[in-house]
């Protein structure tokens, strides 16, 4: 899909906690900014896709931006809400049914872990009642096994979190903007062994919007268009070890992230070595480590050395989560995946300010993973 779909406008409402402003209002803020960035107006949008998990229907932004009568589809697909919205927008443009539209995601969650109900996932009530319906457990159990199999240390986990907070400090839109040292990260309260409090992200608030259009007309609106080379979403296979799995097969089955990643590279016609900057789901520090390998950026176990060498820092060989990721921004589900795309677009445009990746990055990569075993990947190019 080379050069056929372009992102010409990006907007973001600061992540974290904004008392007195609803999730929807944060989405509207981001949408206005994205429209301004592209130099277009809301009435120019021929379609809209977007969603939130806790803050209502995204199409309600028409109440403030204007009721134009254009088709708007609310999308709710857990952590892949943003990725699925972008994918839907790309399909509208690739099919020739529209020239330009808006993608938006926002959320405002209560403090503490999410508390989904088993029936939403086709599981019996017993699963929740027994105390198994806690996503942090899955991440901890997957990581525990991974560290054992591939020689990853607790120090490596702390390095990921330390980098996230360092990057967050450079990002005016981040929630957590104070660096935290490795020892403090390691010694903070244990939540789900081996993961401590500062190794986990928290539910939060925020909004992100993108204006996308046909690639051929992108330069009319934006000096620095960013092209969508691939937008892919995958669900789990039978037997995979994934979130909310009551059982898994004895042999390892490729998971949703690995399969989404492979499909995206194939579609884009590029490989992991071509990627200059990446955003990988880091709901906890170990997830970023495992996702580095699952998305093809290294072999299993190589992360230990890469982190020690600073390879994934902003000035490293492959900068990852340059905006601080979920760890420094929190996770407003509807907005989180689009935050990654916003950050990569900013980096490819050379407009990331104090956290700009040096060397004029050309190709960027985004990846989300979530319940109940879904993943969305995009590959972007300037």
């Amino acid at each position, binding site marked *: 899909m080379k050069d056929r779909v372009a992102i010409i406008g990006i907007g973001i409402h600061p992540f974290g906690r904004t008392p007195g402003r609803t999730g929807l209002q944060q989405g509207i803020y981001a949408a206005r900014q994205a429209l301004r960035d592209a130099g277009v107006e809301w009435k120019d949008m021929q379609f809209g896709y977007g969603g939130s998990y806790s803050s209502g229907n995204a199409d309600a932004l028409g109440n403030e931006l204007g009721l134009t009568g254009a088709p708007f589809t609310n999308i709710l697909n857990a952590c892949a809400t943003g990725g699925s919205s972008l994918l839907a927008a790309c399909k509208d443009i690739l099919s020739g049914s529209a020239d330009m539209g808006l993608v938006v995601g926002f959320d405002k969650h209560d403090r*503490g*872990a999410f*508390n989904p*109900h*088993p029936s939403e996932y086709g599981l*019996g*009530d*017993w699963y*929740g*009642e*027994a*105390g*198994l*319906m*806690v996503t942090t*457990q899955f991440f*901890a*159990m*997957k990581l*525990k*096994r991974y560290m*054992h199999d591939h020689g990853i240390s607790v120090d490596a986990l702390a390095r990921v979190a330390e980098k996230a907070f360092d990057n967050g400090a450079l990002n005016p839109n981040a929630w957590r903007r104070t660096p935290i040292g490795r020892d403090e990260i390691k010694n903070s*309260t*244990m*939540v*789900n*062994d*081996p*993961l401590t409090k500062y190794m986990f992200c928290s539910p939060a608030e925020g909004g992100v919007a993108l204006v996308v259009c046909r690639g051929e007309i992108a330069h009319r609106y934006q000096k620095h268009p960013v092209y969508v080379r691939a937008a892919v979403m995958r669900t789990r296979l*039978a*037997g995979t*070890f994934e979130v909310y*799995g*009551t*059982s*898994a*097969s*004895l042999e390892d089955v490729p998971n949703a992230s690995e399969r989404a990643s492979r499909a995206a590279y194939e579609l884009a016609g590029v490989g992991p070595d071509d990627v200059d900057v990446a955003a990988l789901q880091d709901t906890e520090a170990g997830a970023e480590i495992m996702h580095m390998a699952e998305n093809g950026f290294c072999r299993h176990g190589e992360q230990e050395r890469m982190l020690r060498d600073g390879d994934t820092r902003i000035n490293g060989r492959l900068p990852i989560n340059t905006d601080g990721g979920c760890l420094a921004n929190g996770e407003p589900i509807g907005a989180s995946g689009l935050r990654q795309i916003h950050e990569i677009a900013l980096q490819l445009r050379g407009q990331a300010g104090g956290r700009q990746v040096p060397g004029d990055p050309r190709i960027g990569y985004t990846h989300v993973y979530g319940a109940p075993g879904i993943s969305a990947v995009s590959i972007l190019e300037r």
Partner: protein
Amino acid sequence: MAAIHKSKAIDPNLFHWPAADPALLASRCTSCSGIAFPVGPSCTRCGSTSVETVELPRKGRLWTWTIQRFMPKSPYLSSETEATFKPFGIGYVELPGTVRIATRLMENDPGKLRFGADMELAIYTHRVEADGTHIMNYAFKPASAA
């Protein structure tokens, strides 16, 4: 393990209860041989509705684990309060020839859990209803030395 009080399984699709020697139950597909826990109406691998209920092995090996250190919010339902909550272990246990199963562990000291450790099934009282009925759930515990 005869019950002296009124008791029932937390869900009838997990294990037979009451039973002298309870075992976990799974669905096995008669078309593709796929096995999944708990018992369901069809095969999660191929979608066939031709499934039979089979018993899973009572013993297995610990594949991974963690400790749940905070009391989960609803839908968690136990007889505990924030004050009486005790961290509990959870893990996946490999049951030979069948599946890795998600389970609570009867051990909550990470120092006493080891990869590949021998584990065995335990049915425990998860909570007690207002009328005194014990709600029974499954877990795994380190296997007692033979």
